[in-house]
């Protein structure tokens, strides 16, 4: 063995260590060459990860469906409605701000996907997990850790009915 863990010479080591000599320093030694090979492997892993993102992006080309959400009269000013769009797992919020003003956003906070809570009286969405805040009209982050705006649901109001017709993902 190159070196014992307690630093004592071989003759002072306990019997079990003499019976089962595991050279830990030798075993744990990582040469510069091995580190280099490991770094190249990590580098290849990054390429695989980015290729995966590219594949995910190429799949996202479906046309979003048109979904009826509610009638205008069903929602009072300052009230909100929870709905799913475009998939059942995508929870969204429809908020009536004014007589003719409706906004809808994805409910997942862009920080760590907690559900945001509408506060129309304060003109904001509040993420209670890490105190993130979003502007209620634009969905852009105004305070806290979120950096990206909430994805906005494109609305269409026809003959007193509110429809969701698309999703506007925004990077900034």
């Amino acid at each position, binding site marked *: 063995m190159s*070196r014992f863990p307690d630093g004592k010479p071989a003759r002072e080591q306990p019997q079990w260590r003499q019976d089962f000599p595991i050279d830990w320093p030798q075993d744990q030694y990582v040469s510069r060459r091995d580190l280099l090979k490991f*770094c190249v492997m990590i*580098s290849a892993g990054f390429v695989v990860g*980015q290729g995966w993102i590219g594949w995910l992006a190429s799949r996202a080309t479906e046309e979003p469906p048109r979904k009826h959400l509610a009638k205008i009269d069903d929602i009072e000013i300052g009230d909100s409605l929870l709905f799913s769009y475009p998939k059942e797992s995508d929870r969204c919020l429809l908020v009536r701000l004014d007589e003719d003003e409706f906004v809808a956003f994805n409910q997942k906070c862009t920080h760590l996907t907690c559900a945001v809570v509408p506060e129309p009286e304060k003109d904001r969405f509040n993420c209670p997990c890490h105190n993130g805040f979003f502007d209620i009209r634009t969905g852009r982050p105004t305070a806290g850790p979120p950096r990206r705006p909430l994805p906005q649901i494109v609305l269409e109001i026809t003959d007193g009915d509110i429809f969701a017709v698309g999703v506007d*993902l925004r*990077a900034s």
Partner: protein
Amino acid sequence: MSKRPTITQKQRLTIVNGMLGFVVLILILQLWLFTSTMESYLGGDYVIIWPAVFVSLACVLLNLGLLVYLGRLDHTYDTAEDARYARRTPVDHSQYI
């Protein structure tokens, strides 16, 4: 016929250290590229994704090239005696700790 250039062990160590520093820098660049790509994808900006993939691929090819060069480097020795010594004697790693 020209003699193949020989490199001492100390020179090899310097080259390996330089390679390691360079590879780590490339790795940091790739990490930034990956996080930027992910942010863009989540924000719906798909334009930069594939160019970023190709840049990352170029980085990994660069790293692989360095690794191949490192393999070739291990086959150059200062003298014939040095080569025989390297084959017969196990490397004492404690000098590098």
